[in-house]
């Protein structure tokens, strides 16, 4: 009888502090990305296109948005007798009183779930990266080399490698090789191969090392599991991934990765990647085509169904339901679902969460701001008062009530809570 041989587990629990107001009410993996989708749609679509049909999502932080987004799993075709997505929230039982104390602990607490399905390979992914990958090639490499663990890596500039898990990988073949060393966020990286947080495990070994790890006080795959496996001479391989990898850990990175969608030859081609999202989430499927007004101007931008553009839009991404009124101007910005931009408002380098209204003559950012962190981010359900000026690199928390807005101005880099 056919049974799926690969079980995928997506680590989608975390909130990332650096994304600030975008993750006040949702985990990182549920942050909107790409004009209609969510970050987790990228690994989910990769799984769909890789023919991997049994998926567990480990979710802990503010999971409602994520649960709502996953729905039945039908959006990714993960519904059927041998296909399905399970959301695995933290739980208590006779033995275990904890929240998920880390990525490795989260998987450890669900070892019986893994046993139930009895897969021959366990694929562990992080739910918060933007990339296109056929996991089957990595799984084939993993099986061919009879590895206990194969971890995927990508080349990054050496000066940024310190932020990642970094491995030295032997040149066994073009696809990868034995892992020679591994360090989590090293001060002086020995190589520029950075971990993608994509792991193939031999199930028996995974269970073994996770049990050992329980004696420890830290429970992370990168910080604890891989170094332990290296030390104890497990067969650990590095798989070299050579495609695009979009990192969205900070607002600036989120903004940059979004900008990679634009241009005549974008680094991310959503259409050819076949990204699928849940069309029922925020009623995407109920929106009419983009409506362009008589005096609209839009250039080098993306907009999904449900947008109404009457003003000027340049180098920007508009999620469903954004309304740019006549006389408004938007540059270099990402506006999530149902933002409304009133006449005379000018937005530069803004990431604005859902349901925010920019009233008449609001200014955000500046056309040629030279600040280091120049992106201003506005939390959801805000109404920026008429004529208000927000500088570059500002942060506005979600749902600021009318009386809490200061008088007229928020200076560069300021935060409004």
């Amino acid at each position, binding site marked *: 009888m056919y049974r799926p041989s690969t079980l995928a587990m997506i680590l989608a629990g975390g909130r990332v502090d650096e994304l600030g107001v975008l993750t006040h009410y949702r985990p990182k993996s549920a942050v909107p990305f790409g004009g209609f989708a969510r970050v987790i749609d990228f690994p989910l679509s990769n799984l769909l296109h890789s023919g991997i049909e049994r998926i567990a999502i480990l979710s802990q932080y503010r999971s409602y948005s994520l649960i709502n987004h996953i729905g039945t799993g039908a959006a990714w075709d993960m519904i059927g007798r041998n296909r399905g997505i399970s959301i695995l929230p933290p739980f208590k039982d006779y033995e275990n009183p904890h929240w998920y104390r880390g990525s490795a602990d989260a998987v450890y607490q669900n070892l019986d779930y893994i046993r139930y399905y009895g897969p021959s390979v366990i694929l562990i992914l992080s739910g918060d990266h933007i990339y296109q990958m056929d996991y089957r090639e990595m799984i084939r490499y993993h099986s061919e080399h009879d590895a206990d663990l194969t971890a995927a890596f990508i080349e990054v500039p050496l000066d940024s490698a310190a932020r990642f898990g970094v491995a030295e990988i032997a040149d066994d073949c073009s696809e990868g090789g034995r892992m020679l060393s591994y360090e989590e966020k090293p001060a002086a990286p020995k190589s520029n191969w950075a971990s993608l947080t994509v792991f193939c495990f031999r199930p028996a070994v995974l269970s073994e090392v996770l049990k050992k790890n329980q004696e420890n006080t830290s429970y992370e795959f990168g910080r604890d599991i891989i170094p332990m496996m290296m030390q104890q001479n497990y067969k650990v391989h590095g798989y070299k991934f050579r495609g695009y990898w979009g990192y969205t850990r900070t607002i600036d990175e989120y903004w940059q990765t979004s900008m990679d969608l634009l241009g005549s030859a974008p680094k991310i081609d959503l259409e050819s990647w076949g990204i699928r999202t849940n069309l029922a989430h925020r009623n995407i*499927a109920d929106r009419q*085509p983009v409506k362009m007004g008589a005096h609209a101007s839009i250039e*080098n931008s993306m907009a999904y169904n449900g947008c109404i553009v009457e003003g000027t839009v340049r180098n920007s991404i508009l999620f469903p339901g954004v309304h740019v009124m006549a006389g408004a101007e938007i540059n270099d910005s990402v506006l999530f679902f149902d933002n409304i931009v009133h006449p005379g408002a000018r937005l530069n380098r803004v990431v604005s969460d859902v349901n925010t209204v920019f009233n008449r003559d609001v200014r955000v950012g500046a056309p040629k701001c030279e600040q280091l962190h120049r992106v201003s981010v506005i939390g959801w359900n805000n109404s920026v008062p008429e004529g208000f000026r927000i500088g570059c690199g500002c942060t506005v928390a979600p749902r600021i009530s009318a009386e809490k807005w200061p008088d007229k101005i928020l200076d560069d880099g300021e935060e409004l809570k």
Partner: protein
Amino acid sequence: MRESADALVLLLAGGIGSRLNLLVEHRAKPAVPFGGIYRIIDFSLSNVMNSGLTKVGVLTQYKPLSLMAHIGNGEAWDFTGRTRGIKILPPRTGEKDSDWYKGTADAIRQNIDFILANPSEQVVILSGDHIYRMDFDAMLSYHQHKKADITIGMMVVPKRDIHQFGTGIVNDENRIIDWEEKPAIPRTNLASMGIYVFDTQYLLRTLAHDRLEADFGMHIIPRAINEDRVYAYPFYGYWRDVGTIQSYWEANMDIIRENSGISPEEWEIRPNPECGGRSMDRAPVRFLPGSKVTSSMIASGCVIEGTVINSVLSPGVRVKKGAVVTNSVLFDDCIIEQNAVIDLAICDKHVHVGAGAVVGDGENLTLPNRQFPKHLYTGISLVGKEARIPAGVRIGRNCIINFGYNDDTFSGQSFLADGESA
């Protein structure tokens, strides 16, 4: 909450709509794409859903495959559930021989078993080929309040158009006291929209009266106004029978015109996102550097490098650099190559217009199509599904390029004169 008891809906979706020419060559009229992501029948189905009605039979006859695929299990309009449902009702072999539906009343008569199997107080009978928004729940309440046997949705139409409709003369209580079907010299401007509420028992009785009474407007209604309680339910608002190329084009243009009265999203019209190319899974529209788009509707998956003005683009249309699309309706995945020009055209799915080609060339909008002078006479040209127009060719006004046309030499011609077909 819904006020009235559950009524059964029967949707007449069998019409050929032959005046839509190429657009109905491979699909029934209700399945013709409209407004970028919709099909004509979405308006009726969404009205049914938004009226809180949950049991629907769709009577099909002409080229039903596209329509059946589009309706699917009805989930898009919330017709799935234990007591909900939408059923396709094709003509069947009767006692004698193959019984094609001979008219609206005959079609309903042949599905009496469906009506009996779904007990209801009232039956709502609609046609699947109009663009409008209407609350049938309010109409049902009106019907009950009037204690009517039949209630007919009616609206005022311009005198010049009235000859296409069933017309009714009403007294001051909106009771219909006289009826004329498609009158040459009209006495009223009150036209039937082809929307009927029948008391179920009355409907069963009146259909049993005479099997030769095949049509509601021609037979059933004229008899009923003399014998029974027939009321007009006045409708005010946007309503279009998009049965001609001209009216179809105008209604598409209405969507992009300010204050035209039609707004699919506000009307809560729902397309079926799981049908066909699953248009909603396509990426957001990409407006590339140099694009210029005004007064238009652009659906997901489109990539615009050129100029689009006053046009409706379905998912996946590509308008390349230097190309100009004006006053046109382009269905899914049309490709308009560099520097091509499209004006006043309706292009069916997957049309490919070569570089520098022109569709809608010249200023003479009034020379009708030679083959179909009653279909194309206002300057609109039609390009059939999957047709390929070679680079550099010029196509005039009121022209027809047939389905799948694929002759890279264009028969040695470099232009197609106004009113000609290829």
